[in-house]
Structures are given as C-alpha cells and as structure tokens.
C-alpha cells in the first residue's frame, strides 16, 4: 500500500500566521484569545474570541479589507472571497512554498484539493439582507460563491488551477479531518499523487455567536482562562477562525522531488454516534469506535501512541465524553499516551479544527515536542488515569493521534507517525 506523507503546511491561526510562530506558541503555551471588540456590548453575553491577527475583514465590502504586509489580492479574485477564503488563500501559498512545489506540481491531473468550511454566514446574511431590501437583481453576482460552504474550494481550485479531485466536506467540526481522511484514501488508492487539505472558518461574530443559542460558548470574561478543556470549571468553547492547508503526497512523489516530510499519515478511522443531532454520546461511543477503527486499520497498538491531540473543546459534556472514550481505548493496555487539547490556546475552529490540529501534530512529530493542555486549574475527575499533560514536553512523539467530533455525532481519528 502506498505510504502518504505531509510535506507542506500553511497556517493563518489565532496563535500565529506561519508555522514558526505557531510552533513557538504551542511550545510556550501562548494563547490567541482576547476580549473580542465586536462582542463588547451589553446585549452580547459572550466576550472572548480568538480572532486571527493582522487581517481586517469587518466590512461587507471585500475591497475595504486590509491584510498583513506583503499580502495583496487582486479585486478580480477578492470579489469571490469571504474572510475564511482569504485566510485559506494565504495558508495555501505558505503550504506550496513550504512543500517547494512549482506551478506544474500544483496544477496537474494527479493533484487535488479537499476542503472544509462552514461558509460565510456573515456575507450570506449581508447578501440576503440586500436582496430583501433592494431586490433580487441587486445581489452581488459573486455573493453566492463567496458565502456558501463550498466557497473555499471554489476559489482555491480556480485560482491555483487545481486539475485533480476537488470537493468539500460538511460534517461541522469533523469536516476537515474527513477531508484529510478521504484525501489519504485517494492517495492510497492511486487516484491522486498529491492532495491539498484545507480547513477554514471566518471566526467572526456571525460565525461564532449563533452557538450561543445552544449554550455552547464560554461566557468567561478572562481571555487567559476562557478556554480550559478538561478543567472542572470549563463552561463552553471559545470561537476562532483562520485557514490551514496541509500538503499530502505519496512516497513516490516525496522521493522523486527529494523533499523532507514532516511526518507520515498512517491512516484514519471514523464512526458515528447515532445518538443526538448536537450532543456527544455521553460515553463517547462514536469517538471510541473511530479511534478503534483508526488503530486497527493502521495496525497500531494503543500502547505505541505517544501523543493525542484531543478534540476537547472546553464544553462540559463533550470533554467528559472524550475522556471516557480515551479511557476505554487506552486503559486496558495500561498505555499512558500524553494527551492535550490545543483548543485551550487557539479556541475552537469548527470546520478548521481537524486540519489545524493535524498540522499541529505534524509540527510536534517533526520538531520533537508535545504541546501542553493549558489553563487547567483543577482537572476534571473524569480524566482520572489519563496522562493529560499540563506543560509542553520536549519529547518527540513517534506516533500521534488526532481526534475530532462534529454535529450529528460524526467522529474522526487520524494516526501520524515519524517520517523515516
């Protein structure tokens, strides 16, 4: 079976806009949360978010947006974009440069792109308001492609001239892990030689606040502790946005191009709770099955896993459910892999989460560290017996596992391995 490697990464995240600053934030447990200015009004009980820095996309008019120095996007391209597409576009450029891909490597029949985002509720809302107010024919001609949930791959596939497989995945917070999993399958099946995997979210008011209705958001006013997965005092997640791109390639391509990969993607597994439209199964049955499938299909024994990047978003039910799933998988063999949720630092990126945290795993495996689970004051007793690391360990994980869970009870686990 062909082996698959990660050869390039691009990051626009709340903890850094490139791999170097992201690595530093992960090692030093620097978070990206703040009192988000648009939330600081009395009607909004949520105060903290983790926005990306250096981009101003507050206007509904894309031509008003400002970007960090060195980034400029032609109007012709910008008009079909929403904030998350801009982030993904920037991350894509980083990933291409990082993987040392030339134009011909990016644009050919054997190179595809799988993506995930929740679309742009912000621009969608603006467009619908305009339609109701000014009439159907006054909608922006590109309002749809800029705002529906496929926006990110429509834009990237067209602008980077992708010729291979392309589609989007919509399993909410599991989306971009599904994208990575199916990209892996396409490479293993010989359908493609190279796949870009993209996760992106606007992470602005309209993308985050609708979660307040289901009481899923933290109401904390302290950015330093608002996101605290596995802590007894956790009270909901903190929203974030951004864009992350991973480059996956077959072993043949890695050897042909002579590049050094971050790590190997060994395989993946998924499973569904079949339980509730929005709430995790209390025993974490679906996530347990996803991990079991991932370990079995990759022939990995639980005790060989060194590091787990947990999905734990800092919600009371979700974190406990994942803790039970982890106990069920690892305790029987006495394995004590290091476990952390980097969402304490980044906030929860929804469709972005799987790609972002897979990217973190790739950095950890290559650079030899395991980021700590920050902001835990008092560990939830549900985690008893689990090795939840509070500080960053300077040890190189040989095997790492990333978990995600999405609405509808969709769960995905991916196994990464040191490249040799």
């Amino acid at each position: 079976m062909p082996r698959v490697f990660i050869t390039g990464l691009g990051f626009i995240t709340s903890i850094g806009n490139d791999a170097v600053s992201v690595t530093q934030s992960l090692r030093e447990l620097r978070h990206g949360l703040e009192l988000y200015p648009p939330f600081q009004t009395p009607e909004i009980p949520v105060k903290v978010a983790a926005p990306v820095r250096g981009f101003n996309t507050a206007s509904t008019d894309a031509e008003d947006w400002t970007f960090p120095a060195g980034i400029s996007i032609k109007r012709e391209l910008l008009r079909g974009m929403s904030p998350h597409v801009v982030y993904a576009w920037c991350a894509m450029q980083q990933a291409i440069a990082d993987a040392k891909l030339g134009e011909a490597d990016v644009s050919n029949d054997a190179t595809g792109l799988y993506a995930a985002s929740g679309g742009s509720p912000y621009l969608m809302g603006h467009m619908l308001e305009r339609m109701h107010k000014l009439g159907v024919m006054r909608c922006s001609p590109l309002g749809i492609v800029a705002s529906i949930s496929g926006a990110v791959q429509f834009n990237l596939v067209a602008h980077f001239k992708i010729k291979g497989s392309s589609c989007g995945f919509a399993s909410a917070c599991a989306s971009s892990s599904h994208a990575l999993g199916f990209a892996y399958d396409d490479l293993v099946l010989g359908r493609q030689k190279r796949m870009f995997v993209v996760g992106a979210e606007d992470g602005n008011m309209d993308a985050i606040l609708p979660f307040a209705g289901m009481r899923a958001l933290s109401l904390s006013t302290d950015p330093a502790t608002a996101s605290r997965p596995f802590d007894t005092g956790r009270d909901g997640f903190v929203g974030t946005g951004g864009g992350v791109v991973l480059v996956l390639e077959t072993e043949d391509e890695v050897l042909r191009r002579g590049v050094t990969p971050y790590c190997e993607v060994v395989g993946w597994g998924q499973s569904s709770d079949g339980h509730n439209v929005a709430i995790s199964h209390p025993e974490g049955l679906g996530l347990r099955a996803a991990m079991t499938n991932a370990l079995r299909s990759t022939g990995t024994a639980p005790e060989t896993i060194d590091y787990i990047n947990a999905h734990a978003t800092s919600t009371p039910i979700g974190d406990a459910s994942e803790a039970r799933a982890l106990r069920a998988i690892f305790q029987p063999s006495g394995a004590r892999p290091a476990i952390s949720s980097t969402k304490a630092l980044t906030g929860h990126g929804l469709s972005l989460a799987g790609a972002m945290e897979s990217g973190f795993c790739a950095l950890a495996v290559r650079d030899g560290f395991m980021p700590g689970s920050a902001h835990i004051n008092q560990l939830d007793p549900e985690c008893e017996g689990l090795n939840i690391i509070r500080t960053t360990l300077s040890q190189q994980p040989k095997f790492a596992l990333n978990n995600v869970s999405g609405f509808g009870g969709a769960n995905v686990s991916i196994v990464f391995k040191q490249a040799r």
Partner: protein
Amino acid sequence: MPDAAPPNPGNAKPFLATPKPFAPEDEASLREALKRCSPSAFESAVQYRKTGNPEHVPAVVIGIIERFVEPDLRIKLKDADDDLRLIEDLGIDSLTMMEIVILVEDVLQMSINNDELRNLRTVGDVKMFIDCKIRGLALPKPTKFLPIEQIAAVMPIQPPFLFLNEASVSSSGANGKYKISGQELFLQGHFKNNPVMPASIMLEALGQLAVLFLLEGATPEPGKVISSSMIYFTGCEGVRAHRVCRPGDILTLSIKPKRMKMPLATFEGAIRVGQEKAAIAEEITLTFGYAEAVVPPPAPPAAEVNGTAPTKPTTPSATPLRAAASA
C-alpha cells in the same frame, strides 16, 4: 434578419423624465456607492440626479467602468475612443459586467435587462445604450463583427478587388483591417522592383468600408433597404497620403458618416498603420438607392412566382467602386 427588427418598445421607456427630488441622504448613498470612482464621476452623478440631464451620464458610466478595470489597464480609458473593447482591451468579464450594471442601475436609478447587455462590446456601445435608455430612444443596432466570409457575402465588390479582411460595423461608423499581403497583382508594377500600396487603392478600401456601413450599419428610412447593387462612388475631398505602405503593413481603416440624405451619403475616413497616420479623406461621398425603388430584373423567372419584390436584394452583379484619386 433579427437585427432589422424594430426595437422592443418595452425597452424604450424613458427613465427619469422628471427627476425625483434629490435629498441629502440620496447624496450620501450616492457617495457611498461611488466611493471607489473618480470625484468627477460622483459630481456628474449628482448633477444627473438633480437635473435629469443626460449630458452628465457618459462621465458617470466611464467612471463606473474605470472603477472595475484593473489599475494597470485604466490608462486605456483616459483618452479612450468609443471603439475600446470591454473584454479584449479592458479585461472585463461577464461577471464584472454584471457588477458594472448593478452599480449603474443603482446610481442612475434605472433597470437593465440581461438580454440588453449581450450586444454591448465597446465603451461606445455602453455609452450609447445608457444614453438611449435615459432619453427613451430606440436602442441602436449592436456593433457587428464581420469576418471576411461575411463581408464577401454582403458586398457587391469581390476578391481580388476586396480590400477588407475583417470589419466591425455599428450605427455610428465602421472599422476594418486589411493586411497588404504582397500578392496583390498590381504591386508587381507599382512600382518596378518597389512594391508600394497605391494611394488610390487605399482610398478604394475606405470607400469599400463605407459601402459595408451602408449595407450593415446605416439606418435607412423605415421599410427601405439599401440595394447593394446601387452604391457608387461620386466624389472625395481632402485626400492626403502620409505614409508609404508596403507588403506586411496592416491597414487599420475607419469611416464615420457625416451626412446621409438619399441618394447621397458622405463619410470621413482615416487609415492608420499601428499608431502612424497613413492616409485621410475629409470627405468620401457615395450615391445609393433603395431596393424597392429599382428592383433589379430577376434572372430566373422562378423568383417571381408570387409577384412580390424581394425585400432583400438578390446577389448583385459586382460593380466595383471606382476611386478617382490620383496616386
């Protein structure tokens, strides 16, 4: 022949015959809508909205087009003639055209149908179109682009005496191109061992473009069709040659009608090679007639079965236009 159909009266409704009162909040929303356009476009829009005077419209339309053109191409609009093409010269695609339309509708308080847009290919087309809509006039015939096959199909003049390779014809004039191939028979003797395009032939080419305009672009009296077999040269004024033209040169020809009253049509014409002026004619006058007035005797009797005169002339016998200028 759908182009000759009378314009849909539904398209000819006047807009803003009496302007709505222009409130301060209208000015604010106009300023917001035109914030990326030149100040002069905004000023013209304010004037138009206050007075309803269509003279302000071209500056608004050009200002809006300019705003949607990539900055490095905007220079082309600075001293643009009306033949500047939206797609080829300005890089405006159909989606950008929709953005332009939405902003024009918003700013000029008008509505434009999708099918009205299909024929707008040049800046001149757009200006003419908006002007006609605002004044409540019938829309002009769209610019027609004719390759050599179509030119040869309608012209009374045929190869080897046809000096047009391609042409575009609108209601305001015609443009054409002719590449001097070097294979033209007369170049063997004009001059000895020194092939130079005769100025008389260059004038002939302009005259042929004028013939094409009469057949494809001119709006004759209602119900009349100009007969291709009744167009002849009558005279010219102010013809000057500025540049020696040789094999390999591409002549860019243009003519514009100056006066047209049955049976005479007078044009001005010019020829360029690249940016260099090659020749001008201040006036070229042709005589023409309508097909109904003198129906050419049809050769096969079968054409007369129902006794009605054809509305479109049958293929005429070639009657070359004769240029009288001396080389």
